[in-house]
């Protein structure tokens, strides 16, 4: 496989913005609908511009998230770009780097908004979201097999049976991320929990407990990504460079869950890891904090093994003994992640990575944080990004 190296340090994040997760969630729970998806996105975009110290008219590239329509978002933000796209959080960062590298655009706005809570979006059952994109989300309904959580429950049950990893060890993820959320003013769930609380919580789809599932809430996120040169000349704050990106998709047998059940996505993560670490000229030992897409807690142990942060078959012990919280060896999901901060489908992880590299983590800041590795394996699409100073 050819290792792409040409995107390293080509682009940098110079602006981040988020809606008010905590305030909006309280309003939604009180029965209000504060904004629609476009409204949340516009709030985040305004904040990101201000954070970057640039003007709207400086933007010449636009990427919108999958939950909003590209043209309408561009219309509402008043942007006629030279290049545009629609993509999820992780691919939009990679696409922005590619657009900048090829000269299609120089200052790219990445914009996401989602009113999933107030609009009562369902991720399981008869109206399960995403079935048009992922056949596995709906194909097994005749056997009552629905909700993305169940797909991961099926995967992790087998992982436990084959490796000896336990439910209590998986609980380390929810406990660590809740600790991080308690130190994050933007996080929705700040009440600390223990392994005992985790084990006592109800099952949703056994072996996964309530605390293994992500939140469902409204919000918006925006990032401004530009060329390293433009960033040096114009950014208000220290630019956060994108040192490496990687991707490898496990599509074969996806609807039958073959990449999940037979491989635990491992070959995809290993190929992706090879690319991202080679591009950045770094390895797992150089990484100060890890962000992992955690729609469900079990993404975390699978990724820690897949990306080489611990030995194969050792992740249960690694999480329990060496630790994945700010107090442990390898801080993971330092903002609280999807489980405890906000479910912005990977977008909030990019913001947290930038904050940590900037040193803006406040009470949850990782000391001397130089490199943050983000990765995700949504439906077998392994994607990695390394942010650094």
């Amino acid at each position, binding site marked *: 496989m050819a290792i792409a190296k040409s995107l390293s340090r080509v682009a940098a994040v110079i602006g981040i913005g988020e809606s008010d997760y905590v305030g909006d969630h309280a309003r939604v729970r009180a029965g209000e609908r504060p904004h629609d998806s476009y409204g949340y996105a516009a709030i985040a975009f305004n904040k990101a511009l201000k954070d970057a110290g640039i003007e709207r008219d400086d933007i010449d590239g636009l990427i919108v998230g999958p939950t909003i329509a590209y043209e309408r978002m561009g219309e509402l933000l008043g942007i006629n770009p030279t290049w545009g796209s629609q993509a999820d959080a992780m691919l939009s960062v990679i696409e922005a780097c590619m657009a900048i590298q090829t000269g299609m655009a120089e200052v790219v706005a990445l914009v996401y908004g989602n009113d999933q809570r107030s609009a009562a979006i369902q991720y399981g059952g*008869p109206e399960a979201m995403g079935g048009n994109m992922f056949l596995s989300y709906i194909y097994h*309904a*005749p*056997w*009552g097999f629905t909700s993305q959580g169940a797909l991961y429950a*099926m995967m992790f049950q087998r992982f436990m049976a084959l490796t000896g990893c336990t439910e209590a060890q998986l609980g380390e993820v929810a406990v660590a991320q809740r600790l991080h959320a308690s130190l994050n003013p933007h996080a929705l769930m700040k009440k600390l929990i223990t392994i005992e609380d985790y084990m006592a919580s109800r*099952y949703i789809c056994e072996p996964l407990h309530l605390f293994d599932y992500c939140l469902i809430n409204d919000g918006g996120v925006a990032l401004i990504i530009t060329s390293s040169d433009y960033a040096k000349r114009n950014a208000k704050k220290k630019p956060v460079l994108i040192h490496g990106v990687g991707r490898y998709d496990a599509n074969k*047998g996806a609807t039958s869950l073959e990449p999940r059940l037979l491989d635990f996505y491992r070959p995809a993560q290993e190929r992706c890891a090879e690319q991202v670490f080679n591009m950045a000229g770094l390895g797992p030992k150089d990484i100060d904090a890890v962000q992992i897409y955690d729609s469900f807690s079990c993404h975390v142990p699978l990724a820690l093994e897949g990306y080489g942060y611990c030995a194969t078959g050792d992740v249960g012990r690694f999480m329990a003994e060496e630790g994945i919280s700010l107090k442990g060896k390898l801080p993971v999901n330092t903002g609280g992640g999807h489980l405890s901060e906000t479910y912005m489908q990977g977008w909030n992880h990019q913001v947290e990575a930038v904050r940590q590299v900037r040193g803006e983590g406040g009470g949850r800041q990782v000391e001397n944080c130089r490199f943050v590795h983000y990765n995700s394996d949504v439906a077998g699409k392994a994607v990695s990004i390394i942010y650094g100073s």
Partner: protein
Amino acid sequence: MANSQAVISLYDEPMWESIRAHDWKLQQCDDCSEFRYPPAANCPHCLSMDYHWKPLKGRGTILSWVIYHRQYFDNFPPPYNVVAVQLDEGPIVMSNLVGPEPEGNWVGLKVEICYGEDVAIGTVPKMRLIQQSA
């Protein structure tokens, strides 16, 4: 809430017809002999468009299992199980294990296809444990 429904593409209909006849068939590639699931126009293994419908021998091995404690469909009140079974022919299917549930680890247990009736879908293939011979 509502009942669960099957996804019926052009290629699913013959499969469900075979299920209603209690003789579950999948497409087997005429060129490379691989079975495919879910049904589709082409063979994902060799891309051939030529296939025939072949009855399954009816046996497989449990790869994993889950127990639902939350209700998502009217026709599936919890608790209920879902098993992932690798058929002897190769494909992995999701199903429900009927009869007494095993204690402890289900991975590796041998199962055979049987048929159940669902209020919404009609005949649905299920799995039951094969008695382990001494």
